[in-house]
């Protein structure tokens, strides 16, 4: 049973669980808040009124997803499909409409991205062939550059939704670059980015022949010949994390037998392999050629490479995979706990389209579904990029952000160590809020108070506004499309007073505008 909060603030019948000791989380959190209120020392300040209609605001303690959806559905759509609202994206959504804007982003290859590409031009390792990466004098170059490129693209690409989906599949087929090294740079380009809005089966099969994945999950050294016992690591995660899900109906015997089928799946890596280095290799001498049974299917002896291909065919076509991928996509795009009807429709779309990712997304991202979905908490990576976009920051290098701010916040790209990818939950991230506030303060500043490589154009941001109230209104408009409550705008105004604020104060206030609770959600 799970608790759900709908936009009307009501909670589902799962509420009966509230009386059980296990489900007293809300009560506990309430108690924590009560104590925290006293501790914070700010409790004596009256809460500012909110401009939102009471009916759309869940009462305190009514659930884990507290903010109501904004009635501005196109604003919500922009927030969901991109790394954060900009006036330009919103104007596009207005001119294209809900469906047109979604289609525009799904048809991403038609979007001109030359401005972003120009920012990538100095990252020369992005276009190297795999074997050329092996020949680099400094093999850390692709590791650094693929991380830098991820941040540049997330911030500046016009193909915003494509980049969001790259993030999703990067987590889904997670590889820790700390273990895989530059092989992940190949995987990022040739597996994830090549298929992020393509076909799931193609994506999954490409991942299964990715040097980075085979190395990361130890399959590249697994041997099943003779008395050797194969390594189960990749076979297990293929079923548990990549396709069927942990409750997908496979057994330990299926894992063992899949591992046997996949013995010999490795990659070319020695100098003698020349231009093949970094590419998939089937090493017949490692393979267990005895007969196996996987998911009830007999796999006859001496199948060689075909054994592993059969495993992929079985797991990709398994009904559990459609449900698992549908649910995970819906959780990413829509709602941590997607309604069963949404999952069912998305799974049906997955099956009928043979795993066409855009078809599944269209089934999930409808005006009705989005209207009913509670807000989600931005993960730190998402939040930081949204902050940079919100202040239209010019970033000439993400180096400091990658090695400082994102480290403390906990989400440096490609560095989640275990194969499940960065978590996507409120509970995991919400407590570490201080780095989220600090990022806003830093990007609005200059010099030693700012972040090296990051600058903002205060004059352009002000858009002609010079008074406290005018600037606060501009912050609301530039970052939130005017959706902030009157109380928030007043608070910003009061911070900016007297009426002709100093530059230092204006910088502070832009940072404060990014520290608001409203900015934590999308």
């Amino acid at each position, binding site marked *: 049973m799970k608790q759900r909060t709908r936009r009307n603030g009501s909670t589902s019948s799962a509420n009966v*669980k509230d009386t059980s000791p296990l*489900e*007293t*989380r809300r009560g*506990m*959190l*309430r*108690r*924590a*808040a009560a*104590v*925290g209120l006293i*501790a*914070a*020392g*700010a*409790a004596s*300040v009256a*809460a*500012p009124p*909110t401009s939102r209609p009471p009916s759309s605001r*869940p*009462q*305190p*303690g009514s659930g884990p997803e507290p903010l109501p959806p904004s009635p501005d559905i196109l604003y919500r759509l922009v927030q969901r499909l991109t790394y954060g609202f900009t006036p330009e994206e919103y104007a596009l959504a207005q001119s294209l409409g809900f469906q047109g804007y979604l289609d525009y982003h799904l048809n991403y290859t038609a979007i001109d991205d030359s401005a972003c590409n120009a920012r990538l031009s100095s990252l020369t390792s992005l276009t190297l062939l795999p074997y050329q990466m092996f020949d680099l004098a400094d093999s850390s170059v692709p590791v650094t550059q693929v991380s830098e490129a991820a941040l540049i693209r997330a911030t500046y690409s016009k193909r915003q939704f494509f980049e969001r989906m790259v993030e999703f599949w990067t987590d889904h087929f997670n590889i820790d670059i700390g273990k895989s090294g530059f092989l992940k740079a190949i995987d990022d380009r040739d597996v994830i980015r090549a298929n992020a809005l393509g076909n799931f089966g193609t994506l999954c099969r490409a991942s299964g022949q990715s040097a980075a994945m085979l190395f990361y999950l*130890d399959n590249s050294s*697994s*041997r099943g010949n003779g008395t050797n*016992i194969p*390594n*189960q*690591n990749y076979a*297990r995660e293929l079923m548990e994390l990549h396709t069927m899900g*942990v409750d997908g109906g496979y057994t*330990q015997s299926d*894992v063992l037998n899949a591992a046997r089928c996949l013995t010999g799946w490795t990659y070319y890596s020695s100098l003698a392999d020349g231009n093949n280095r970094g590419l998939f290799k089937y090493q017949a001498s490692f393979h267990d050629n005895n007969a196996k049974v996987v998911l009830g299917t007999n796999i006859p002896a001496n199948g060689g490479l075909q054994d592993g291909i059969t495993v992929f065919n079985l797991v990709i076509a398994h009904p559990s995979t459609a449900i698992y991928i549908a649910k995970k996509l819906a959780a990413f795009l829509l709602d941590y706990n997607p309604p069963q009807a949404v999952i069912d429709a998305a799974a049906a779309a997955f099956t009928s389209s043979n795993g066409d990712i855009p078809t599944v997304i269209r089934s999930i991202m409808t005006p009705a579904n989005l209207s009913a979905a509670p807000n989600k*908490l931005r993960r730190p990576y998402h939040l930081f990029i949204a902050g940079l976009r919100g202040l239209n920051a010019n970033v000439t290098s993400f180096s400091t952000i990658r090695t400082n701010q994102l480290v*403390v916040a*906990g989400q440096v790209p490609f560095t989640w160590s*275990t194969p*499940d990818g960065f978590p996507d939950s409120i*509970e*995991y991230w*919400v*407590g*570490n*809020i*201080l780095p989220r*506030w600090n990022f806003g303060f*830093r990007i609005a*500043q200059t010099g030693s*108070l700012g972040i090296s490589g990051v600058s903002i154009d205060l004059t352009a941001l002000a858009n002609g506004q010079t008074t406290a109230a005018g600037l606060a209104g501009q912050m609301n408009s530039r970052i939130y499309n005017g959706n902030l409550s009157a109380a928030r705008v007043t*608070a910003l105004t009061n*911070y900016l007073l007297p009426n002709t604020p100093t530059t*230092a*104060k204006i910088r*502070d206030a832009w940072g*404060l505008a990014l*520290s608001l*609770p409203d900015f934590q959600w999308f």
Partner: protein
Amino acid sequence: MATYDRNACDEYNELSRRDLIATGSMGLFGLAMPSWLPRVTLSESFVSNRDVIVQIYLRGGADGLSMCVPYGDPAYFTNRPLTSLYAPGASGVNRLASTIDLDGFFSLPYAMRKLRGAWDNQNLLFVHATGSVDPSRSHFDAQRYMEVGKPSDPTVATGWLGRHLATSSAMLNGSVLRGIGMATGLAKTLAGAPLTLPIPNVANFNFEGDTTTRTARRTFVSNAYLTETDPLLAAAQNTQATIDLLASINFSGYVPAGGAVYPTASIGSAMKSTAALIRAQVGVEAIAIDAGGWDTHSAQGSRGGTMTTLLQNLAGAMGAFWTDLMAANMFDNVLVIALSEFGRTAKDNSNAGTDHGHGNCMMLMGGGVIGGRVYRNGWPGLGAGQLYQNQDLAITLDHRDVLAEVVAKRLGNSANVSTVFPNYTPTFRGLVQQLP
């Protein structure tokens, strides 16, 4: 006033914060306080003598057969031609692959020799052939069910330690921070805990930017979050209060007692920060530390590689912590638990590694631990016909028995054991002393 028993300690008899609070003498405060201790006096006092609990979660499935080695079971050696350690006294062996006898059946890897002090002082207990009875070999499910304290139930949202904190009063009246997860995100174990935050670096926790506007910005942010509901409201308020709390402790100037030297690895700094927090007595009563890297599918390196380094860092950190708090005379009310989601296969694989298994060992270290023992509820054996699903060490002792006994006897919460571990009736095994 205070009932927190700090025993006799020269330093603390002179400098006890309790006395400082009693005298209220700012002169004494400024004169004699170690520089790393809180610079502000909390007006509250300790009301409990229960243990501060430190959980070290060994993420990835730590190989317990390489941590507390069953050298008395001949099948251990035949199962592991590539990864077994050697019996105590074996000749001609690389020192890193050797072990130190514990009880005639189990031995301690040389890499963990820094735990000898705690073992000899009967402060260290191994519990073997234990673990979560959940059959999952998934890291993520196994961790989750262990952390929420109930196997195979995906509906439980809170962690066992979170529920303990939620059902017990604060150790320090008016405490603003009861639990810390030393990570960038909150460990499931602590989910549901009041006054608890994930904090990756306790030594650096403040508003950045212009210091002259810091107070004004903090006030602005405090007020802005008052409109919110939990969990965002609690996160914001706990963070604001914790900024002041942690600013009162000079972590970078912390001087471990007894000449303790913590390893530079992250587990070392985490344990050092933990010691500083405990010695500062600011009311933090539960600390969760994640130690990763234990998923040793290939080139396990228990004979002088990856695993050796992991064990050296873990044992080095725990050993330094023991030295530090013993010398500070504060070990009586501290309990460290090291555990992992499952053990690893009894047999090694062709990559000189081991795969996901089942039964495992746990470590308990503390003043109230009845240690110097390897406790097991019968040794299930590693031979043919003895293994769980024909491949792993079996579980003969539900790990909840261990944790529940700790909750009841050391954390002063015997009334709520059934909330902390729902639908389970634990058997207490006599692993820890009942608090006086």
